[in-house]
């Protein structure tokens, strides 16, 4: 597609439920990032995929968080047993392997009630 696409755009879930957030990067972009942004805060690095290399998962806050990426396309961020502190915007971004411009999606707004 023309840009980074994320779904759902908004999700309200009950505490304890699992959620899946999807990111469809720009075609041909080998690098894909997930960030979390709490209301009024900065962006918190979660995970980074680069081509077929092992992902850098160092930013995942707990073992309730996991992410996968199929080849160089779609990525899914899964949050298990959601907690209220997981409420935030989850932003996906992609870039080419050697380019310098990073493109962000519109984000998935997650609210845990």
């Amino acid at each position, binding site marked *: 597609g023309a840009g980074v696409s994320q779904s759902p755009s908004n999700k309200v879930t009950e505490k304890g439920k699992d959620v899946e957030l999807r990111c469809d990067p720009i075609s041909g972009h080998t690098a894909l990032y997930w960030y979390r942004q709490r209301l009024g805060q*900065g*962006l918190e*690095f979660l995970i*980074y995929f680069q081509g077929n290399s092992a992902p850098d998962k160092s930013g995942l806050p707990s073992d309730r968080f996991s992410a996968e990426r199929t080849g160089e396309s779609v990525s899914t961020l899964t949050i298990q047993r959601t907690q209220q502190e997981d409420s935030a915007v989850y*932003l996906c971004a992609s870039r080419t392997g050697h380019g310098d411009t990073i493109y*962000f999606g519109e984000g998935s707004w997650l609210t845990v009630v």
Partner: protein
Amino acid sequence: GQQVMQIPQYQHVQEGEDFTTYCNSSTTLSNIQWYKQRPGGHPVFLIQLVKSGEVKKQKRLTFQFGEAKKNSSLHITATQTTDVGTYFCAAGQEGNFNKFYFGSGTKLNVKP
């Protein structure tokens, strides 16, 4: 993770005044990027700086990377109401060009 300090947290200016935001790291950076995020929007990439002492300009915006590659600044000359938003720096780790840690952002408000 790597600490990147960004100041000020907020800045209110009169239209036409200049604005500067600063990012500082205790460690040497491989590169630094700047983003703008409008209220309710997503971050939009502005620029990437890689070289020590690098200066880049985009119209009224001037970006600098320090000689020691530990700090950076974004300066806006003669602000306009369209400049309103939050400006973030994102620092690339030394040895890992592609992994970025974001500063906390500077929220700019421009009064007409």
